């Protein structure tokens, strides 16, 4: 079994985040909220009159929004950001169960990177963003906030998270009760709980404005680094199963994993949940941008 790297997750760098945020801004700014209970929220970065913040100039920005005083001081073009009339609250939920820690914690690393990028992009657009890590219950929470300073708080929260190697199941439904007020929710999880956690997603959908589900998966999940008769142990429940490890078993596990994804995707389509199955071998930028583009039609 590979040793999981459970140290501080290697979060994306500033350049990567800015690049992703610029693309994500276009996908998020023109989004039409269609979910039930839709309402206008405040303090969203966009076109408005209330000055909100500054940021670096990017091609396509209005020249008239350049803050020449700040540009002269920082020796690079800086534009003013104004408070949008349609800002909203977002909560990023991160699965910290033991199943995220297997196979070198690759799923955990990818999910943490994706969560950090989503938080950054949303904060850049002026949204209030909160972070919630869940396992058997809520394991960590960064309350909603806005601005770059809040991103630093998000990063500090992420840096302190370490999934348990064993005995930590996922209870997403239980965490739904911790959501207060209207917010859009993004869930990063492998959804390897009972019933692919569809019941939990349904409960969560009742309490949020819109729901995004990113199923984090790893090809190694359906491989066993052993041959012959083995004693399989579920890292979350501790349940044991005698099995015979060979190529046929791996193929059957692949098929079962695909079936689980298929059932989850079907459920999300029926429920209006933006769903993406993410193999961690793919870059997080590509996965998140494709998800946001798909979400414009779903949510």
């Amino acid at each position, binding site marked *: 079994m590979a040793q999981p790297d459970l140290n501080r997750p290697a979060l994306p760098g500033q350049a990567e985040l800015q690049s992703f945020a610029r693309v994500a801004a276009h996908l998020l700014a023109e989004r039409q909220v269609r979910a039930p209970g839709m309402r206008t929220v405040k303090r969203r970065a966009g076109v408005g009159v209330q000055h909100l913040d500054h940021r670096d100039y990017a091609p396509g920005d209005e020249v008239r929004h350049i803050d020449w005083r700040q540009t002269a001081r920082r020796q690079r073009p800086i534009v003013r950001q104004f408070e949008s009339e349609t800002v909203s609250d977002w909560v990023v939920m991160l699965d910290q169960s033991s199943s995220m820690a297997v196979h070198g914690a690759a799923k955990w690393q990818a999910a943490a990177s994706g969560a950090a990028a989503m938080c950054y992009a949303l904060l850049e657009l002026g949204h209030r963003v909160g972070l919630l890590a869940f396992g058997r219950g809520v394991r960590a929470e960064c309350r909603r906030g806005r601005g770059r300073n809040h991103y630093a708080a998000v990063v500090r929260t992420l840096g302190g998270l370490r999934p348990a190697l064993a005995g930590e199941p996922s209870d997403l439904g239980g965490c739904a009760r911790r959501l207060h007020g209207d917010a859009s929710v993004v869930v990063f999880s492998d959804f390897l709980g009972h019933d692919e956690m569809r019941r939990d997603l349904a409960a969560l959908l009742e309490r949020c404005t819109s729901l995004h589900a990113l199923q984090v998966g790893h090809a190694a999940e359906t491989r066993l680094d052993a041959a012959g008769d083995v004693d399989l142990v579920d890292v979350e429940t501790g349940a044991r199963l005698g099995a015979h490890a060979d190529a046929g078993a791996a193929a*059957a596990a692949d098929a079962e994993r695909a079936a689980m994804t298929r059932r989850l995707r079907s459920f999300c389509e029926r429920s209006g949940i933006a769903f993406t199955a993410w193999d961690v071998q793919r870059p997080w930028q590509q996965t998140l941008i494709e998800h946001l583009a798909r979400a414009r039609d779903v949510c």
Partner: protein
Amino acid sequence: MLSFATPTWLLGLLLVPVIRWLHRGGPRLRTVPVSSLALWRKAATPGPAAGARRPPDPAWRRRALLAALLSVALAGPRLAVPVGRVTLWVDDSLSMLTRESGGTRLETGLATVARELSSAGRSDVEVRTLGNPWQARAGLTPEVVAVLVKEAGQREPAPPPAGLRLADRQHWLLTDGADPRLTGPDAGAMYARVFRLGEATRNVGVVRLAARRSLREPDRLDVELQVRNGGDVVEERVALLESGSGEVARWPLRLEPGASVSRSAVAPSSAGLRVVLQSRDALEADDTLALDAQTLAARRVAVDARCPAAILAALRTHPALRPAGVAAPAELAVECGASVGTAAVPRIRFALDQVPEALDGPWTWSSNVGAAQRRRIEGLPLRAAGRLAPRADGDSQLLAVGGTPLIVRRRTGGAPLIETALDPESRGGVDRPAAPLLVALLVDEALSASLLDAVAVVERDAQSVMVAPRADPGVVTTSVGRQVTQSRDGTRPLLVAALLVLLWELAALLLRWRRERVDAEAWSR
């Protein structure tokens, strides 16, 4: 056939079913953590049916094998294996050269053994002789037979040494049985087969011929010979003593069975003497005996003309010396002030440069000088007539009196040089001149030989002329030979096998321990 030294240890085999019972719980499977068991439902192995048992841990076979190997090894298994290798011991005594109807006993016997080996299909054969047991020859080939016949009779046979009585070989013996020492209870017990041959029982042989210088006639030798009847009937022979100049003496002999007779004669000095028995018998090799008398020939001595008359007289009366002129090649030089010999020739040098004076003080002899010679010299009223140079490195002092060296052996790098300061003209009385005994001592030291006591002898073992076999001829297979198998100890191979299985078990345990440690570390985080 398998047997055990301590079969009680075989009770340890009862551990095998116990080990099997202890492993009834099945193998200890490797634990593999997975993210969800739901993915692996189709790979699940069915559990044992109702009433059925789980297959035991396969490791029980390895552990049971280890216990079984140790139990059997401790029981001391002995396996009877056929003995295929043969060592042929050949009695190469003189009697084996006795001529029978079909040739000598040795030739006939070797042919018989060769046929027997061929018919028995024995190919791994080594041949040793009782006279030279440490030399082994592979196979009984014609070349080996020729060498054995050529070298027979040259050494005294003896029973095989204990170090060569190897238990993993069959030992065969070819003998005529004339020498009871070779087939005695001690040696005979080792032989699986004994080939006895020989029918001739009559033989007379010369067993000794000796010669020494005649004290009364310096140019003649006193000779003695001994003849023995090795047969079992009264024999009559004529013994001829011959020298280089022809027949010296002739004796008609009548010998009782087993009896010996001796005869003496005076023969002229000669380089060789020979005794021949006339009316030869089946064993011709012992009818003749030759003696090399070269060692008894007189040595030529070169003498310094300035030597006193006493020295010259002593040299002339010495039976083993013959004074020669200065120009003649000499084997010894005697100097009294002038040099008459080279460094390659042993020399005796007299220091006579002072007025003789009596010796005073205790006598100190070198241990190289014999006790008899010391007694002869110490009884003489010797005087010192000179002074020797101080002793140098490598010189050895043969005699000193009162701390004064009187006889010294000088180290010259060539032949010995004996220096003396004793007065050869010392006299204890008219009838006891000192020079002859003093000169004899010095000559013996210079030549490193005892010339006055020299005796030339050639003799053969009296047993060697005994040719009558002690038993009937034929091939005897002993109780040892009827044992076509030998017991081989199987403990060591079993212990080696048990050690290998133990290493196998330890390696398996080590691998499992490492695997479980990695899993435990991963789970403990």
